[in-house]
């Protein structure tokens, strides 16, 4: 009995298709197809990044308008394109001073612009607007860099570049997503993960302490903890600011030494990036200056400690990058309580009654007053 078989034309077409696929493998068409698929994937994700950048700009402008800002779009455009040229590093002499000078100018320019644009708003609202504009600018920058790499890869037929970009896109999107969420939290004014250091400082000082402005946007107070005089430094809150903790500590210690009150211990408390797998909010202790600045503030801690022979200790609260810039998670808040206890323990164990100690709560003080 004759078996039922497929019509000849289907068989011919499928054989031809297999032959073509086989030939294309030798001509590198498969690779081109792969590149095409990668580019398509990047373009689709680029669209997501573009939407995030636009959405964040809209939110920043809306926030500024709520505080009667003049020409918020204009100021945002200025912040977006503002740049800072890093100082010459092949001649390292006085590089820290040069860097500090440039950062100070940048900060002053931003502050002036926002004061002009939002004359009716208070300092807290202005600082939040400034941070919102910076986040919108960061998202726009991420979008522009990805677009640049994609277009360069396509233009120069650089398959490796496109492949690398496609592989790293999930990570880039994760960072962009974190910034997008951070913008909402900054606008609301909630403490972020990075505020753990200022929280510890505030808790050590206690309610009702008299704070004085010792440096630009940085305050200091003193208290007595188990018979030790403890000086505490943090950025001035509850606006979005990191202050100048290094400069403030340097000034404070020089004042203390001048009146014969040389500190026996310096402790910096800050949020620090954890390694994947580590527990968020866990606390660790070490030696050195815990601060994530590019150099000018950190070096001040080290120099003043070395100049007067003061032991420099660090207590860190561990968290992920996203957690550091988003609303403080409960585990980080609990970590700050543990860090406070660790600081008290250090003071007890490493100093004697009557000694002087300086504790610096490093980090953005948004949502943390004094």
């Amino acid at each position, binding site marked *: 009995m004759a078996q039922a078989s497929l019509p000849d034309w289907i068989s011919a077409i499928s054989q031809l298709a297999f032959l073509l696929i086989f030939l294309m493998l030798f001509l590198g068409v498969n690779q081109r197809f792969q590149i095409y698929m990668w580019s398509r994937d990047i373009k689709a994700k680029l669209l997501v990044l573009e939407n995030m950048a636009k959405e964040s700009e809209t939110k920043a402008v809306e926030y500024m308008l709520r505080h009667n800002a003049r020409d918020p779009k204009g100021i945002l455009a200025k912040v977006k394109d503002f740049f800072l040229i890093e100082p010459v590093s092949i001649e390292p002499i006085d590089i820290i001073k040069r860097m500090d000078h440039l950062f100070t100018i940048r900060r002053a320019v931003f502050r002036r612009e926002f004061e002009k644009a939002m004359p009716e708003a208070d300092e807290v609202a202005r600082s939040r607007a400034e941070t919102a504009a910076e986040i919108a600018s960061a998202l726009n920058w991420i979008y522009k860099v990805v677009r640049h790499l994609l277009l360069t890869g396509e233009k120069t037929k650089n398959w490796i570049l496109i492949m690398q970009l496609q592989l790293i896109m999930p990570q880039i999107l994760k960072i962009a997503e974190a910034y997008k969420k951070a913008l909402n939290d900054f606008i609301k004014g909630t403490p972020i993960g990075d505020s753990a250091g200022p929280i510890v400082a505030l808790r050590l000082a206690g309610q009702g302490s008299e704070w004085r402005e010792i440096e630009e946007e940085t305050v200091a107070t003193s208290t007595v903890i188990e018979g030790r005089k403890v000086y505490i430094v943090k950025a001035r809150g509850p606006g979005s600011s990191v202050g100048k903790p290094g400069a403030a500590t340097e000034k404070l210690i020089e004042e203390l030494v001048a009146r014969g009150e040389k500190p026996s211990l310096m402790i910096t408390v800050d949020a620090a990036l954890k390694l994947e797998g580590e527990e968020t909010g866990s606390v660790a202790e070490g030696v050195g200056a815990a601060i994530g600045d590019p150099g000018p503030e950190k070096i001040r801690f080290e120099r003043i400690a070395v100049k007067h022979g003061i032991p420099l200790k660090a207590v860190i609260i561990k968290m992920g990058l996203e957690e550091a810039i988003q609303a403080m998670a*409960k585990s980080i808040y609990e970590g700050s309580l543990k860090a406070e206890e660790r600081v008290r323990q250090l003071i007890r164990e490493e100093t004697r009654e009557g000694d002087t100690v300086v504790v610096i709560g490093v980090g953005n003080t948004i949502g943390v007053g004094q």
Partner: protein
Amino acid sequence: MAEDVTWIQPLLLMIALGTVIMLTLKQARDLKKLQEGTGSKERIITLIDCGEDRKERDFKEGDYIGKQVDECLNGVIVGIYAVKEEKGKTKAKPRRAAP
């Protein structure tokens, strides 16, 4: 008698085509998720120290740690943090927190 196997080739082509279509649809779905944002919902809690006990309530704009509030005698905000919102849970009323 040898079986007719000519249907295998078109079947393989159909499977390959089906896989490509499924992958394309998956990619489109992933992108849609990205557009919508993957972040889970969270609630911001303000923790108020009322001296002998502590009170929790939802965060209000203007709250900050160290702020004195008149929701209880000598009330001070001592903590503000985010907690992941559980599915199907509605907004909680202010309640006493563990000291």
